[in-house]
């Protein structure tokens, strides 16, 4: 049966249902079982994906492609999922919310894994909708605070708005080419003479995807939603959702629209500059850690786009590695923030004063994450930036690399501002901060990951390279 190739997604779907049913059956004091159940299920997803890693086939009338690209992102998403499950456990205090939350988390992950596997426009759209709706519930229902509701509503409205634009773009594409299959799109676009509608279609599609990766000017929702959402959901939005946005841009734009690259590459490169610059400049002024990380994540997306517009295999390898580095680093940073805010109830940078003496381990791990985001050596971010920017330079994008490097230098200031607060400023409060066990495990994994990726990135870069080489064969 060829549908076996879809086993990881099937497991995810089954997992969502099982969690939902188990939630109905389990009494409140046994809800903790849901954590174990979810982790085992997600581990099953990873195992299934690894077993099926050599699968290479199209399913459901060529709408879903099981290939190394899908494999890479499925494993990636399941791994992120496990970490999110762990940190959510410490975040959600009311056990009654757990079941619903984990169910929606699984649906969100299912949507994301389907997005990366989809090679047909309508399938992409449906998978995206599944993701957005799950996110909407996740943002609002895990905490049930006013702030979260506001964030959820903002996300819903803007998300619907952006998918509407995307749908418009996709329908224009269909109108122009007569196909919704990515494979057919490439050929059809090749024989197309230029017309304004094509430009419109490309820009609308880009706008729709841009919303996912918080590309300027579609980034407006990010700070408010990141701040208002429960932090584990923020992590999911900042890492998994963003990574999938990049996967989409790769599949659709670099996979099948390379033939009309003249119409979208330069605009995308310019938007990349705006994205990193705006993210960085606004981050400089932030006093709230979550908002600062939100703006920093906007800037990071700008750096990753540098690798995308390079339009080369090296560039995309850089982006994949960057996504890994960025994700593991962000998870570390946000987890530290979660631990801190659970104890102190604050996300203000000023309250981090003297953290190095109050809770040295926490200060150390947060510093590692921040320095990695800043792109300093020894940490994952350094290798990611080096590889990605070098790839862009190899394709002659010196101006873009120049902007990216200037931005990197600027960003150092606000990351160090937090480091300074933790290490230099006087103690705000003497009481040590307890580390819940799950979060501690995640923090440990993330820190170790940041260091491994930063010191010996070789196996990961080779893996990313293999994926890119097998999918994007047309690129130089």
């Amino acid at each position: 049966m060829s549908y076996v190739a879809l086993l990881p997604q099937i497991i995810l779907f089954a997992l969502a249902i099982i969690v939902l049913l188990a939630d109905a059956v389990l009494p409140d004091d046994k809800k903790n079982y849901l954590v174990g159940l979810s982790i085992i299920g997600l581990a099953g997803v990873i195992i299934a994906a690894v077993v099926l890693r050599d699968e290479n086939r199209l399913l459901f009338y060529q709408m879903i492609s099981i290939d190394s690209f899908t494999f890479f992102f499925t494993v990636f998403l399941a791994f992120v999922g496990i970490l999110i499950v762990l940190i959510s456990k410490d975040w959600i205090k009311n056990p009654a919310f757990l079941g619903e939350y984990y169910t929606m988390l699984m649906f969100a992950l299912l949507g994301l894994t389907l997005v990366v596997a989809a090679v047909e426009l309508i399938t992409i759209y449906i998978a995206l909708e599944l993701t957005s709706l799950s996110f909407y519930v996740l943002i609002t229902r895990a905490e049930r605070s006013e702030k979260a509701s506001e964030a959820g509503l903002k996300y819903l409205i803007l998300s619907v708005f952006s998918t509407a634009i995307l749908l418009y773009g996709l329908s224009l594409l269909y109108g122009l080419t007569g196909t919704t299959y990515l494979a057919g799109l490439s050929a059809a676009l090749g024989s197309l003479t230029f017309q304004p509608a094509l430009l419109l279609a490309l820009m609308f599609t880009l706008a729709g995807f841009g919303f996912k990766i918080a590309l300027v000017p579609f980034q407006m929702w990010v700070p408010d939603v990141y701040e208002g959402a429960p932090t584990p959901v923020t992590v999911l939005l900042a890492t998994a959702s963003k990574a999938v946005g990049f996967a989409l841009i790769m599949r659709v734009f670099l996979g099948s629209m390379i033939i009309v690259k003249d119409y979208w590459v330069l605009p995308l490169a310019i938007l990349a500059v705006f994205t990193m610059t705006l993210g960085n400049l606004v981050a400089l002024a932030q006093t709230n850690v979550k908002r600062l990380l939100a703006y920093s994540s906007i800037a990071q997306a700008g750096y990753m786009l540098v690798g995308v517009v390079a339009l080369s295999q090296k560039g995309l390898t850089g982006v994949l590695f960057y996504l890994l580095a960025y994700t593991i680093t962000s998870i570390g940073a946000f987890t530290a923030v979660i631990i801190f805010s659970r104890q102190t109830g604050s996300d203000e940078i000023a309250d981090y004063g003297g953290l190095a003496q109050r809770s040295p381990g926490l200060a150390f791990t947060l510093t590692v994450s921040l320095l990695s985001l800043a792109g300093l050596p020894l940490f994952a971010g350094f290798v990611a930036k080096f590889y990605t920017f070098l790839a862009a330079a190899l394709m002659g994008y010196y101006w873009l690399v120049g902007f990216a490097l200037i931005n990197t230098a600027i960003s150092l200031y606000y990351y160090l501002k937090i480091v300074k607060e933790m290490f230099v400023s006087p103690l705000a409060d003497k009481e040590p901060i307890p580390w819940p066990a799950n979060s501690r495990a995640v923090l440990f994994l993330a820190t170790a990951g940041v260091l491994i990726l930063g010191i010996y990135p070789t196996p990961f870069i080779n893996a990313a390279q293999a994926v890119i080489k097998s999918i994007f064969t047309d690129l130089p």
Partner: protein
Amino acid sequence: MSFPYLSTFILSPFIGALILLFVSKERKQAIQLVPAISAAISLVLSITVFIQYDRSARGMQFVENIAWVKSIGIAYKVGVDGISIPMLLLTGIIFFTSVLVSCISIKKRQKEYFISLLMLVAGTSGAFCAINLFFFFFFYELAVLPMFLLIGIWGSPAKEYSKEYGAFKLILQIFSGSTLVLFGIFILFVKTGTLDMVTLSQIRFPLEFQKLTFPVFCLGFGVLAGLWPLHTWSPIGHATAPTAASMLHAGVLMKLGAYGILRVAITLLPSGAKFWLPVVIVMCSIGIVYGALVAMAQNDLKFLIGFSSVSHMGIVNLGLFTLNTVGINGAVFQMFSHGIMTALLFALVGAVYDRTHTRYIDELGGIAIKMPAVAALFALGGFTSAGLPGTSGFVAEFMVFMGAYRVMKLLPILGIIASAIVTLYILRAVRRVFFNDLNPKFENLNNAHPLEFLAFGILTASLILFGFFPSLLTNVINLGVAPLVARIGGAIW
């Protein structure tokens, strides 16, 4: 494969830092012992490499090469030649002495302090050994970051500048410079497809390319090398930093900038260097005189040494840009000599400051009665700084200005002016700080601790040893400089 001397040299501070991370902060002795052992290992290794380097075989030795990321030419490749060996020795000596000094002078949060210090040394050690541009840059940036914490946490305000200001100014300015360096590395890789510095040094780049790329590297490294007018972070950074950090900073870190100029900018792009020579010489010359003049006006001892460092780094840079054998030999020798000498001066000032709680010349006075040895050594360090014969400073400056004479007949006058000014302010400082009448506040002043004396002793001994027997070092340096000068000689004009 022979014993990996260089990797051990790089890893020793790394592992020291890693061990410290897991030592409880209550165990005060262990916290001092770990860095001391790691520093002793580094010192012994650097001396071993210095002795074992095969003078007849020349070239890169102790090479270790491990492939890292093949697709973009990253390899962990380390090796040393005549230019890096004195730098290794310098790192070893200053690392060891700075740990000794820190054991006495650092009172709070010693654990974090030593971790930062060890990371700083790990970075510089790596950068002096690396011969792959990726790892060179990796270690280069790694060396800078700990300064931020060292100044921020254990520093002290100086004049109107807070320590936070000093820390941020230093880090942001140096990182802007290193961003330029990174850009330059990209340009080189795009052009050649390799990051291996040995391979790159055999390539002859087109003249136009060299002209354009040279300033990128020269300005990038120039920030760290204290090249006027990019030096502004340096005096403030020195003044706000704690003693041992100043020692390492002026002693080793700034040398890393000069080393980068020599190793990357001049070696790889000799024609570019020739083209920009007039501009850079002017910058160095202004730096030499400006640093000395401003130092003369300082009341804070650390600012005094900080600005005199700018002046002396000007001499180093001038020597490098003479582009002839004697000048570059002198510059590398000056890097070593000035490193040891500034470290000594900062250590002495630190010892005085720890006991008197002031660094202002006009608040001190007559403390030679209480700390006679410190006074004597300070005078000795000062004479080295002024380039008095019999000290290593004399040899170094003599060589640099001999080289400079060949470039422009009038340049050595700068040296005379600078020496005169240095003599003036050093003697004045010595008189006002250590002699005159004893300030009654300092009636109960203690002498320096034996550990500190050990540090002063090691530094002084190296100064005198290489002052009387400069050939010990210059013979080795010349092995590295000679092929370089041959390459410059053959460069396209």
